């Protein structure tokens, strides 16, 4: 969930709670104040009536004041000066329903006669009142929340802009490209601190990565000469007469290790070189021919493993790639498929201008699908170095091609999806072939 949405959610929830509480309070207060007002008004009217009655003592019967109803009726016996305030419901003929009234009743002596005087005043219906208040408040609430929401969005977007910019920068940060990550300064101290720290961090990561690459390359290069010494000494030793079988075996196993180490070095150097973008010169390479020539080259191994080779290779598929890398890519994939192919199983190779698919039958992999392209992940193959597919992956990354691995129905399948502008089908070439 986005930061903006989270803060907005909290704000809106709080605003809603506040609005409910305050509207309840408001309704209560309005009702209370109006109530007070009515009572006060009635008492005021009482005084007014008393005054008028004392001036015009002959007033009898009903005297109407619009809105309020005053009733004066004689009583037998005056009891007290007590004033009664009561609320009653009275049927309204116009509205055809009972409406609330407040009634003030008191007794008064006029010229020695006792009269009961009652003044009725219609009350605002509390449901109406509450309804009105609620509606108003809801409208206000919607207003506030909407304003709040949009303002907050706008503010947040402005305020958080440097943050999102930094985030975007990080998202597109690619160690392999070796670009420096720079952040724009902003007015907000926290974001500036964040940017500074991120800059430091990415610089350090980039530097470490560079060092690591240099170390790997130097290490691999520098090891080649001592390895050459070891191998040459062992070979000279192997030529000597009167070696015992035991000694020969020792020499051979030492030679074997030298071979492994040397292969590993060469692969590591190649990987580093690809990562360093040292294969810049690209040209259109005839992939179809390349695949055919590698298949021819490895025909013997295919035959000896009795692999059932099935190909569907479109002629004239050209790819813009460094010649050396193209060669390694195809060669590694095919030799991988042959090496791990099950004797007597299928070896499928499909090439067109969209993708290259190489598949072989074999037992289920012991490492997970996403680890298969990692360095030194070689499953249960003790003889392999575990860099061949890592190199393949790097080459694909280098040429912006997608490579997928899948194991299904005992079939290991590698699919390279060419990116559109890299590959073209040359029809005239296809016609010639």
């Amino acid at each position, binding site marked *: 969930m986005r930061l903006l949405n989270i803060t907005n959610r909290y704000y809106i929830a709080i605003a809603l709670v506040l609005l409910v509480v305050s509207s309840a309070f408001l309704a209560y207060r309005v009702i209370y104040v109006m109530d007070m007002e009515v009572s006060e008004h009635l008492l005021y009217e009482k005084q007014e009536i008393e005054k008028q009655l004392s001036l015009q003592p002959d007033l009898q019967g009903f005297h109407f004041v619009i809105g309020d109803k005053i009733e004066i009726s004689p009583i037998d016996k005056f009891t007290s000066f007590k004033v009664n305030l009561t609320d009653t419901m009275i049927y309204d003929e116009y509205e055809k329903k009972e409406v609330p009234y407040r009634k003030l009743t008191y007794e008064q002596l006029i010229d020695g006669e006792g009269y009961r005087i009652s003044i009725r005043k219609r009350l605002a219906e509390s449901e109406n009142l509450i309804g009105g208040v609620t509606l108003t408040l809801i409208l206000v609430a919607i207003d506030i929340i909407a304003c709040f929401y949009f303002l907050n969005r706008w503010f947040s977007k402005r305020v958080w802009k440097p943050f999102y910019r930094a985030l975007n920068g990080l998202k597109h940060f690619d160690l392999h490209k070796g670009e420096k990550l720079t952040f724009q300064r902003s007015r907000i101290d926290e974001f500036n601190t964040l940017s500074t720290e991120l800059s430091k961090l990415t610089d350090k990561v980039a530097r470490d990565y560079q060092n690591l690459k240099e170390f790997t390359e130097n290490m691999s290069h520098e090891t080649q000469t001592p390895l050459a010494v070891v191998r*040459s000494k062992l070979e*000279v030793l192997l030529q000597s007469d009167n070696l015992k079988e035991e000694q020969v075996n020792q020499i*051979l196993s030492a030679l074997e290790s030298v071979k492994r180490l040397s292969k590993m070095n060469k692969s590591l150097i190649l990987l580093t070189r690809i990562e360093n973008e040292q294969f810049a010169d690209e040209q259109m390479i005839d992939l179809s021919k390349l695949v055919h020539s590698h298949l021819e080259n*490895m025909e013997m191994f295919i035959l*000896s493993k009795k692999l059932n080779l099935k190909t569907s290779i479109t002629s004239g598929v050209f790819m813009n790639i460094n010649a050396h890398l193209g060669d390694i890519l195809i060669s590694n994939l095919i030799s991988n498929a042959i090496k791990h192919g099950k004797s007597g199983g299928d070896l499928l190779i499909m090439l067109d201008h969209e993708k290259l698919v190489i598949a072989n039958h074999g037992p289920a992999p012991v490492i997970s699908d996403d680890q298969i392209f990692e360095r030194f992940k070689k499953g249960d193959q003790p003889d392999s170095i575990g860099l061949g597919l890592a190199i393949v992956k790097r080459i694909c990354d280098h040429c912006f091609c997608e490579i997928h691995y899948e194991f299904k129905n005992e079939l290991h399948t590698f699919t390279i999806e060419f990116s559109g502008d890299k590959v073209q089908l040359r029809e005239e070439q296809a016609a010639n072939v």
Partner: protein
Amino acid sequence: MMKILIVEDEKELMESMLSFLKESGMNCEIADNLNDAIKQLEAHDFDCIVLDIGLPDGNGLKLIQELQKKDHQTGVVIVSARNSLDDRLTGLNIGADDYVTKPFYMPELVARIKSVYRRRSFQGKNEIVHNELRVVPDEMIMYVNDKLISLTKKEHELLLYLINNQNKVITKESIAEHLWGDHADMADSFDFIYSHVKNLRKKITDNGGKDYLKSVYGVGYKFALE
């Protein structure tokens, strides 16, 4: 006898090369820096120079430029720890005849030197003659007692490799790498070598040749003189 100049600053490697090349019947001089090498070049004529590029007092490629001033028939085989295509191309463009990356197999180096030497001195029109055996390097044929016998590509490469390293024990790994390069570690490659050797042996002996191809148990093969 071929005269070779070995230019290599790594003393131990130099000693091994010296010993192996001498045993392969080559006459060797040594230099462990560029200056010495240039002096040697002025003093003697060489058939081939084995040249390490990374020398303490400069790039070995300078020596090739010196050599070209002399306008000689001397071949150059570069020996380098650098394996990139660019390095190879630079070396070859500047006038080297071949390029071997460290760590290399000694028989491979010998085969390269001999091949360079033959190309240089006989302009490719040459045959390797050994008693009743004649191998033509640039065509996939050999003669046994003057009888023309065609060979497969791999048989031909294998025979050349072994005959170039006469009387040396050649390991199967070294043969596999010579024949298949990066694919040498493919399953069964040793079996293929075995069957190639068997076929070659048959082709030679069936036509009255001697059985020169000896198996060295557990190690590899040897082109035996006797």
